[in-house]
């Protein structure tokens, strides 16, 4: 991690701006652009801080970057982007993409994404990533020129592999299972949390009614008036405090969400393995059948039933020259096949090794991050309670002075 980009460069997504422009189909649209600012950490030779460089990017460009990274580094668990649309909202938050709170949280999420990539030992060295941060114009073309889209595996192919693979590495199967469960449990958690937030909001807000009634009541009281009035004020404070509290909790929800999306990235790596394994198995199968064919031709025995065998029986056998030629072709193919198999095997093993290394790294990161998230959640709850104690203590004091 010593030479990762994050150590050398400060990266922030500092602003978000609404823009209008014409898209590829020449239709007017509104979108949000984000300002990425970077600055070299080491000061320059004259002792001053390096200047801040900046450029604007929109969400779709981030998506493009991530696609590129996923395809180019299939053995890496690539950090996820913040959600495209607002999900798991509780009633106060809107699901509107243009809502300032949503945009703000997305800005933070995008910054987080960049920092994650920049801290990754492998990903941070990627040139395209570097250009994303530093080169405003022509970046899109650069990405497309890498031709990464061609390397991308088709969804169908991947699905097929998942079903048909015979001998995947057990660890990957387990990991896939784990990521499915993780996704399910975190979604459930986020959904319930949103409902809990909703209810808590209700409880706090109704207390605000106390404020009003106490105020009205204090108007008709003599000795009790002041006490009631000030207590009412505290009730109002209490009711208002929930907004900030829930705002903070959104941050916790976002941290969980990141890992929800990470589950998808994990699954992608597993799928890649299955694909490679399947490929390998198919290649091995192909080789075996070719070898068999060769053998059959050479010895003249037909071990397995084949249409070719039948037709040759029916329409006469081939000439020895023809057979020789066929055998030669097959032998060549077999040789090719064997080499391919060897390299595929090697590829497969390399993949498993490097993927598993990254997965271990990811696991550690996950445990660390989630532990911190839980701790900060607990701290948040404690602070919420302390505020509650404060308000009620104040109210109590007011009452005691009645």
């Amino acid at each position: 991690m010593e030479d990762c980009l994050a150590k050398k460069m400060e990266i922030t997504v500092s602003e978000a701006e609404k823009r209008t422009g014409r898209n590829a189909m020449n239709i007017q649209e509104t979108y949000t652009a984000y300002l990425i600012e970077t600055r070299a950490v080491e000061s320059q030779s004259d002792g001053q801080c390096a200047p801040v460089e900046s450029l604007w990017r929109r969400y779709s460009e981030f998506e493009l970057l991530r696609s590129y990274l996923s395809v180019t580094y299939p053995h890496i668990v690539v950090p996820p982007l913040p959600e495209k649309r607002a999900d798991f909202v509780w009633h106060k938050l809107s699901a509107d993409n243009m809502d300032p709170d949503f945009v703000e949280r997305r800005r933070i999420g995008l910054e987080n994404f960049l920092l994650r990539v920049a801290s990754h030992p492998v990903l941070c060295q990627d040139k395209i990533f570097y250009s994303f941060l530093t080169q405003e114009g022509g970046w899109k073309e650069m990405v497309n020129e890498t031709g990464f889209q061609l390397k991308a595996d088709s969804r169908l192919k991947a699905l097929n592999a998942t079903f048909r693979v015979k001998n995947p590495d057990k660890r990957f199967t387990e990991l896939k299972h784990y990521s499915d469960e993780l996704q399910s449990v975190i979604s459930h958690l986020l959904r319930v949390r949103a409902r809990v937030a909703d209810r808590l909001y209700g409880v706090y807000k109704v207390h605000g009614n106390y404020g009003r009634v106490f105020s009205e009541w204090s108007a008709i009281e003599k000795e009790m008036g002041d006490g009631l009035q000030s207590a009412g004020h505290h009730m109002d404070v209490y009711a208002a405090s929930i907004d900030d509290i829930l705002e903070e909790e959104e941050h916790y929800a976002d941290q969980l969400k990141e890992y929800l999306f990470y589950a998808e990235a994990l699954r992608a790596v597993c799928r890649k393995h299955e694909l490679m394994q399947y490929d390998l198995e198919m290649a091995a199968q192909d080789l075996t059948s070719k070898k068999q064919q060769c053998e059959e031709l050479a010895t003249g025995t037909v071990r397995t039933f084949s249409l070719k065998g039948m037709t040759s029986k029916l329409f006469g056998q081939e000439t020895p020259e023809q057979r020789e030629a066929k055998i030669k072709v097959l032998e060549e193919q077999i040789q090719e096949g064997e080499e391919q198999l060897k390299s595929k095997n090697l590829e497969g093993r390399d993949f498993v090794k490097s993927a598993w290394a990254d997965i271990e790294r990811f696991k550690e990161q996950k445990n660390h991050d989630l532990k911190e998230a839980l701790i900060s959640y607990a701290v948040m709850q404690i602070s919420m309670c302390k505020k509650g104690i404060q308000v009620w203590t104040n109210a109590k004091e007011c009452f005691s002075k009645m």
Partner: protein
Amino acid sequence: AASTPKPLPSSGPKSLREMPHPLATSSSEEMGPALTPSPDLLLPRSIADKDLSLPNGTPVDTSSPASSSSLLNRLQLDDDLDVETRDLFVTVDDPKKHVCTMETYITYRVTTKTTRAEFDLPEYSVRRRYQDFDWLRNKLEESQPTHLIPPLPEKFVVKGVVDRFSEEFVETRRKALDKFLKRITDHPVLSFNEHFSVFLTAKDLNAYKKQGMALLSKMGESVKYVTGGYKLRSRPLEFAAIGDYLDTFSLKLGTIDRIAQRIIKEQLEYLVELREYGPVYSTWGGLEVELSEPLEGVSACIGNCCTALEELSEDMTEDFLPVLREYILYAESMKNVLKKRDQVQAEYEAKLEAVALKKEDRPKVPTDVEKCQDRVECFNADLKADMERWQNNKRQDFRQLLMGMADKNIQYYEKVCVT
């Protein structure tokens, strides 16, 4: 020796002594020296004795030495609710269910401890049911119409869903009945009411009740002001203000009651969600290795929060809401007293007019009425001050209760055990 009871110059109900002593059957002690203090002190003074009054307007007879000590007692009762100077303690506890052929009902044990000389024994323990309390209250209202009688918990169960014999309901009622008797005990005049004494001491209250009924029809309990079609000319500002105050007061309390109920409802819905929330962390914990401990911890804490929240809601329902409702009832009965006062004044004004017309010198009746009115004013003011103090303390009490609950809730939160 006080062998013959003194006839009483009062318009109130007959003295206790004129009736067969209820405890004569159970105790071998005869009425006698134990009951020497002036019986006058047990009953509201006659209207004629206006010159000797306590600062709060309660007339008093200082003819016998024993009466001065009672006088002191009463003064002290009024100003100082200190336990040491009180001479009458009443408690309501130990509810029991009785099943008879006709009905099933609950009785409560009413325990009295007293050093008052009016009582034969220092201690009494009787069983009473709600009906009996209701009877007592009616009697008090009849015999002391110018006073504010504390309210009873609601007679009928409002929502058909509530179980009359459930623990919570019985306990809430017991507390309210206890408070009712304690308030009477604390009252300088009401606590000396003979119906009250009988209530506290009689083994067979029903017998006394029946006798009371008979006497009623004969004597026609006085100070019962019927709506005799007297119209009020002008209500003194003071009382108009009190009337307005009570109206607004009831309104505000009603609103607070609704808000509190709404909060409890919201809290319960919150609780429902929390109950689902906690276990999800547990499930997640099952999935993880390193994180399982912290996740389980969070789950457990949420569970604790649920418990604490439940307790909070329960306490609010059992302690906070009934007090609100009680005060609303109190306000209602206060308004009734105000109405009576109005009628008294109206009667007085009418009679005054009649006198003016007749050109007769008949000070007696109007004077009666006037004095009555004055008494009402005094008592009203006095009791209002009482009520304020009560309210103040009560509020403090149950707000502290609420605070305590919130604290408990919060302390549970603080037990979050994430590393």
